[in-house]
């Protein structure tokens, strides 16, 4: 697989994800947020939030609407920089100037809109912007055979059985498209994968499929930051849980420190939920 890897992935100077495959959760955090705060004028978007993700681990970021999940993604993916605190990559200040710098450092973000072209074939989308070429001079051309083959291989490695890499991305289901986007990020040398609500628009089965691919990426040794508002999606796959509420951290827990009912309870506002349940029962 590594000989197929395009130059761009190697230029990051970082070991490719495959080298750490199967390593599991070990060692120092890959990507870390240390007491980070972000203000937009007088609005406190995020205040004193810390979390981390290690290779082969899934860190789930949970929170209701307006909890600061989007701001957190923007900090980690280099769209904005924290006003206080730091983003650390391999224990050193990351200082991403822009999303491209984050990507080059191996931090890939899969957004909800996925940056894929619906009318284009899966393999064309997979390599869009980083097409492999062969030949030289005016005959330098898109290595179509390699693109098809690698796409099929990479999707298979993720357990995605696309019927036909020639079909337009628009004909894939939402879950399949998320999976292709994840496979693409993995192939192009991502070490940390930030997934922005990958399951939110999906049905139960589709969401299950995507969760399986998240687990697969984790098993390949990537650090995954999984942003969601659904604790039932987060808990089975997560190793660490950051709970956000109104821009503040409710806690950053390892899986051993918290149970699913507790996550749900904290997210919904703890005692507020108890009151609500009480109220509804009587009604």
């Amino acid at each position, binding site marked *: 697989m590594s000989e197929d890897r395009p130059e761009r992935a190697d230029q990051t100077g970082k070991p490719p994800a495959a080298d750490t495959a199967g390593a599991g959760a070990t060692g120092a955090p890959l990507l870390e947020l240390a007491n980070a705060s972000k203000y937009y004028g007088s609005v406190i978007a995020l205040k004193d939030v810390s979390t981390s993700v290690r290779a082969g681990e899934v860190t789930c970021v949970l929170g209701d609407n307006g909890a600061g999940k989007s701001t957190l993604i923007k900090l980690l993916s280099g769209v904005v920089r924290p006003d206080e605190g730091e983003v650390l990559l391999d224990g050193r200040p990351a200082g991403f100037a822009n999303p491209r710098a984050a990507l080059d450092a191996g931090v890939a973000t899969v957004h909800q809109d996925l940056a894929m072209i619906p009318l284009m074939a899966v393999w064309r989308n997979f390599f*869009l912007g980083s097409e492999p070429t062969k030949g030289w001079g005016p005959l330098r051309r898109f290595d179509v055979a390699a693109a098809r083959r690698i796409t099929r291989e990479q999707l298979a490695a993720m357990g995605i059985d696309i019927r036909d890499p020639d079909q337009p991305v*628009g004909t894939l289901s939402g879950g399949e498209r998320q999976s292709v986007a994840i496979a693409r990020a993995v192939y192009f040398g991502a070490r940390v994968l930030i997934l922005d609500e990958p399951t939110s628009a999906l049905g139960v089965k589709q969401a299950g499929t995507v969760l399986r691919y998240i687990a697969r990426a984790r098993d390949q040794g990537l650090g995954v930051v999984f942003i969601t508002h659904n604790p039932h999606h987060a808990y089975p796959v997560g190793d660490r849980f950051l709970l956000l509420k109104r821009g503040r951290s409710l806690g950053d827990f390892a899986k051993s420190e918290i149970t699913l009912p507790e996550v749900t309870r904290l997210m919904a506002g703890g005692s507020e939920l108890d009151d609500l349940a009480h109220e509804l029962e009587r009604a």
Partner: protein
Amino acid sequence: MTTTAPPADERTERRSDERVSDVGLLRRLLIRPELGAAIGVVVVFAFFAASSEVFRSPAGAANWLYPASTLGIMAIAVALLMIGGEFDLSAGVMTATVGLTVGLLSTELGWNLWAAMLGALVLALALGFVNGFLVVRTGLPSFIITLGMFLMLQGLNLGVTTAVTDTVLVDGIDDVPGYELANALLAGTVDIGGVQFRITILWWLVLTAVATWVLLRTRVGNWIFAVGGDARAARNVGVPAARTKIALFMTTAGAAWLVGTMSALRLTSVQANAGIGQELIFIVAAVIGGCLLTGGYGSAIGASLGALIFGMTSQGIVYLQWDANWFMFFLGAMLLLAVLANRLVRRYAEQSRK
């Protein structure tokens, strides 16, 4: 292939997805962008060939292949531009601008014909660049930008020509040094089995092949589909969207240069009002060939087949001695059919989005 068998529920899900692609082969054939145009070519050819002996003779074919070739060269470039998500309404009138520039530089200023052609090429590419630059820089619809260019060029063509020659015609191009070779290469005829075929037909076939290769087998081709499909998403994954679009406008201008020069050489004169209205026919040929008006989909071969349908019909109607007005009726009907067919294609392609 997958090494581990997927769990049962995943397999069930996949089987239910599979229903969509059960008729895959037929559907895949149906969504080929060229299919509609290919059927159109067969039907139109069969109709005229059955009704007119001249039409099916080699000399007749040479006759209807010529208009198809010049229209086809433009339709290919316009199709690439449309796949890239943009229009160029100035393409038709630009062919006249090129012809007039070649004529005026050579007959009035005494330039060698090759120098005049080079001058016209520089001008055309510059106009194409302006179109493209304004579109990507302002984000305005190319429809409006190139409509402005169209009207300006139309005015310039007439204004400059009448100011210089006191007529609406530039002629005498065949008296300029360099005419013989240029004409032989770009507009002359080739004898094949006693029938004189225009060399423009060869240019057309070669350019169709080149455009198809670029579109389907190069990085730039991938970028063209991408910027037409979703320019923002394309930029997000590192496609140089602005450069791709500007290059497409310049390609269209380059095609206008080629066709404008061919026509000036063949006729040895250029009318100042030539080319007006042609821009829509280029677009119609591209749409019949499977290009979506919204971009991101289409084919160069399809555009060439669309041009072939026009070439056959425009001459076929003459051979059958019909009223030429039927040509316009036919143009409209073909366009309508093509757009309806495209709509079905797009619906199919986006069927299971979300």
